[in-house]
Every structure is written in C-alpha cells, then in structure tokens.
C-alpha cells in the first residue's frame, strides 16, 4: 500500500448549496465548494463557523437541511455513514478502548466482510511507523501515537475522501509541527483527498493546497495559502490569517490600473487588481512584514511613534501609533539594516503599492481579529 497511489479515479467532492439548520439557528449557510480529487484541502475558521458541521455532513454524521453532496457521479447526500467511502479522523481520536490497536485498525475492514486483514493492517501501521504497537490498547499510547493510529485506522479502508476534524488540537507544539509534516507526507504518498478542519491558520497554511476560510456558516474566501494571505478579499480573511493593518480610506480615483485613496490627509496607491470592491469606501490593508521603517516611497506615513517593541528571535515586532492614533503593527526581520528602535522613538513607515490591498469599507474593521482560538 505504501508508495502506491490508492485513490481511484472517483472524482471531485462537490458540495452544492448545502445548508444546515438546527431549528432557527443556521450553522451552514448555502455553501458550495468543489474539492479536487487528490488534493489536500483545509476548512479554516474560528469555533462556531460551521466547519465541523460541514465535515460531519460529508461524513454522513449529519444530514444537510438543503443541498447535495456528490463524489464524482455519486450522490451521497442522504447516504448513511457506513455506506459512504468516506472515513474520519476524529478530534479526540475516538479509538475503541476495549480493542487492541490491531483490532481498531481492522475494524472497518472486518465490517466490510474482509477476512484476511493482517496484511492491510500491518501496512497501515507501517505507514504511520507504529507497527510495534499492534497488540497494545489505546489507553497505553501517548497522544501523538493515538493520533497516528486514528489516521491509520481511517486510511486502511482506502476511502475516496479522508476527513480530519482538528486532529492535532490536543498535541503540544513540537509534536503538532511534526504531525503536520507527517500528514502531508502521507497524503502525497497515497494520493487520497484530505479535508482538514482546523482553527489554526498556520496549520492550514502549512499543510493545505487549498484553503476555504469559513465564517458564520459561509465561505469568505477560497484559494491557496498565498492567495488568501497576500490578496485577501474580506476583512475577516485579512485579520484571521496572520496579522494585518487596516486603514479606513476613501477612493479618490480609479485610473490607469491604480486606485488612489485618501485617509487622514495622506494619499495611498493600490493596484486596481487588488481592490475587491466597487464602493468608494475602502479598507486599505497591508501586512506588517511589508512595512519598512523609512520615509521614502509612494505609500508612507510619517511621524509615527513606537509604542511597543517585542523581540521574537526571527524578527522584532513594533507597535506604532500614527499621528491620528491608529495602531499599526510592523515586523522587521532580524538581519542587516535593522533599526533598533525603542519605545517613544519617532519613525516613518512606507511600503510598496503592490503589497497593498483594498477591501470593502463597510465591513467591520475588526472582523476575524483577536478571535478566541479555543474550541
């Protein structure tokens, strides 16, 4: 099984206008998405955004109130979970405590009537490098080991789609990083579609080919990590992925491929391709690492004051206050050209127009920022 692409040419997973209502409460709101066969896809969002509900509908553990779910040609919307070729890695692993590791992994195979399970089970165990634990019970394994067994238990059934419900949440940082790389490796090796649900944006960006950012039952934006990060289309996405500076501004003109906007007496340029609204009120956005502590340049703000400084090894993070009391975050990489600024110093910031993006100004400027990331 290892090293051999096992996904059948079964087709993409398509959710078409799927909604889920619990009474009056809408958990998933008219959601449509296509997950290409064999890709590593992430559903990213804060707790309560509907990502887990969506996952459970794909698994068959919840039924959509409206809409359809297809894998390739097959409509699986109302199929029971035990009839779908979809397997799940649960958040707390849900390993059967009364069965050995071997029997846990063999469970799905046995239920499908397969008698000779040994080879498949051992191959799955080798894929996660835990063959020596076959006769133990889940209670004797560490969190990281349980997590890998949960993956093995799902993969051994060669599903068309593998669902992962925040599987790394309970692990400590180092182990989590390790597992992120592991899972990515396994996915590339066996070629099954992975759908990974998480609230950790770093995790999503590290592992996934495509990310869908969800908020309150809807998809805010979908794309590669780079697309979402460098060219967010909503304030939520801008604030949720990494950190972001947003300034409320008014559009003065849109000509020659550029939009000129003004805020508090300053003018700034944004390439029109990076403005995602027709409205005259925009939120001008720029990522902290794009800010340079200089006063030359097209987009710049002079006379800011440093209000805080943190040295985090790879960079120094500054909090700056603009002349009109707006807080900006700036990261300066820890290499040559380092400005060793201190609290109270006056400094100017500037950045390239190509690094700017423009979002609809009617949005909440704080959407997606400072969300409690705990489930």
């Amino acid at each position: 099984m290892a090293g051999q692409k096992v996904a059948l040419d079964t087709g993409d997973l398509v959710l078409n206008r799927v909604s889920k209502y619990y009474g009056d409460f809408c958990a998933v709101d008219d959601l449509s998405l296509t997950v290409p066969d064999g890709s590593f896809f992430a559903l990213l969002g804060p707790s309560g955004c509907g990502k887990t509900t969506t996952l459970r509908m794909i698994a068959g553990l919840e039924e959509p109130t409206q809409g359809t779910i297809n894998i390739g040609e097959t409509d699986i919307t109302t199929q029971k979970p035990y009839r779908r070729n979809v397997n799940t890695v649960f958040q707390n692993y849900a390993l059967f405590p009364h069965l050995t590791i071997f029997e846990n992994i063999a469970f799905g195979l046995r239920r499908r009537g397969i008698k000779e399970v040994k080879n498949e089970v051992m191959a799955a165990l080798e894929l996660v490098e835990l063959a020596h634990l076959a006769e133990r019970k889940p209670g004797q394994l560490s969190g990281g080991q349980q997590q890998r067994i949960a993956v093995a238990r799902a993969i051994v059934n060669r599903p068309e789609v593998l669902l992962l419900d925040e599987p790394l949440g309970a692990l400590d940082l180092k182990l989590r990083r390790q597992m992120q790389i592991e899972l990515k490796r396994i996915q590339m090796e066996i070629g099954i579609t992975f759908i990974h649900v998480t609230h950790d944006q770093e995790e999503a960006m590290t592992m996934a080919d495509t990310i869908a950012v969800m908020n309150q039952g809807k998809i805010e934006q979908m794309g590669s990590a780079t697309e979402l990060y460098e060219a967010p289309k909503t304030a939520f996405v801008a604030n949720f992925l990494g950190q972001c500076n947003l300034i409320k501004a008014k559009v003065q003109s849109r000509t020659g491929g550029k939009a000129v906007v003004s805020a508090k007496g300053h003018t700034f340029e944004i390439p029109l391709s990076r403005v995602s609204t027709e409205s005259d009120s925009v939120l001008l956005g720029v990522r902290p690492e794009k800010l340079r502590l200089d006063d030359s340049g097209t987009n710049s703000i002079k006379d800011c004051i440093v209000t805080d400084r943190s040295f985090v090894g790879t960079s120094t993070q500054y909090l700056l206050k603009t002349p009109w009391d707006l807080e900006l975050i700036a990261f300066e990489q820890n290499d040559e050209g380092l400005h060793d600024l201190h609290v109270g110093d006056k400094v100017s910031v500037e950045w390239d127009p190509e690094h700017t993006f423009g979002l609809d100004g009617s949005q909440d400027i704080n959407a997606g920022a400072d969300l409690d990331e705990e489930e």
Partner: protein
Amino acid sequence: MKKDLLPRPSLSHRTGRWFSRNLIRIYAVLAFIYLFIPVAYTFAFSFNDAGKSNLVWKGFTLDNWKNPCGAPQVCTAVANSLEIGIISTVLATILGTMIAFAIGRHKFRGRKTTNLLIFLPMATPEVVLGASLLAMFLNLRINPGFWTIVIAHVMFCISFVVVTVKARIASLDPKLEQAAMDLYANERETFRYVTLPLVMPGIAGAALLAFSLSFDDFIITNFNSGIVSTFPKFVYVSAARGIPAQANVIGSAMFFIALIIVIVGQVVSRQRKRG
C-alpha cells in the same frame, strides 16, 4: 551551614504534629472498625459450638462450617433466596437495561414522567412498597408465595439497574459510536461491537447490585411471601430464640464470596485497560 542552627522540636511536639496530620486517618481506622464489628462478630460466632441457641459463646468448632445445612430450614431459606435472587436479577437487569438505553440514547416524549416513575420506588419506604403490593395481591385474591416475591423484587430493583446502567451509558463517548458507523458498522453492528462491550461493566455492576438487594431484602419480602422462607426472613424469625450458628456461616460465606467477586472484578477491569 552550621548544624543545630534550628532547635529540634521536642518529642511531644513532633508527636502532636503527627497526630494532627494523621488525625483523619486515625478516625478512618476507627470508623472502619465500627463498620466491621458486627461482621467480625457474626464471623466469630459462626464457629460457636452452640447448638440451637447462638447467644453465648460455648466453644470453638468447625462443625458448623462443615455442615452448614445442619440446622433445619437454613438451607431451604438460602436456596429460596438464591433462586429468587437469580430470577429477579435476570429480569430486573434486562428490563432496567432496556430502559436505560432508551433514556440514554433516544429521544422520546414523556421523559420527565419516565424519570419520575423510575425515581419514585427508590424514594418510597419499603413498608409502603410491601404493604401496597400485598394489598393488591389480596384484592386480586392471589396468595402470596414464591412468585409474588419475585414480582416484588423485580419491581424495586428495576430503578437501581436503570440508574446504574444509565450512568455508564452517559459516560460513553458518543464519538465512539460515530466512529464505528464511519467505519462501516451499521446500527446493529455498532451496538454489538462497540456499545454493548463498553456498557457491559455497568450492566454487570447493576446485576450485582440487584442480586444483593434481592438476597438481602426483608421488609418487602416479609409482606409478600406468605409461608415461603427466605434467608433474611429466617434470621428475623429465629432472632428471638437465637439464630443457629449455621446462619452465621451462610452470612460469613456470602461476605467472602461477594468480596472475592468484587476484587476479581477490579482486577479484570484493570486488565482490560492494560490489554
């Protein structure tokens, strides 16, 4: 650092401190002694060479243990109690477990009423339970006897079984059953391979509880047994004259058997976890 910089506390001071720290442990020892005095007494007097009247110590003998059925009616009573216990346990466990699953895993109307109905027998004094059942039997012209005892026992054991099994079901992670369905087990298979094995310790515990409640029951049994003898009834009736030592033997034996069962159960459950 110089030795003896701090004066060593005096012996009495240290003893005092030991006492206050361990006061509660000393208390616990005393409390356990209190709990076990009658048990020890019963056990001791099972060796009494007493003939019919086991009130005063007459001499040590193993005869009672060698011949526990020596006293008339002791073994009949025990046999009845065992038979009634087993039948009642089986019935009550089945009925109670079914109710527990309904409550713990299904939606249905009348949940509050059901809970009340389960709770009431546990909150009713045994006198009332026994008396009312007898009143009904008499009104229906049914003579109390073996089967009326069984009916009564099942009645009051159901609630205890429900509570016990329900707690076990509640502590079962529903994700396990979802995982089973995710792994191609339909509802029946999920129940058989995942739910039932995991709830089984609770069911076993409930059965044990039901059996001990049944075997040891006196008040309700007394009302509904007519002339049928059970072990507690036998002891009560012979209390005035003096209980034969054989009854002590039975009591002590039950104690040890039950103790062994519980210890074995403990060991087994620890084994299950280790694997």
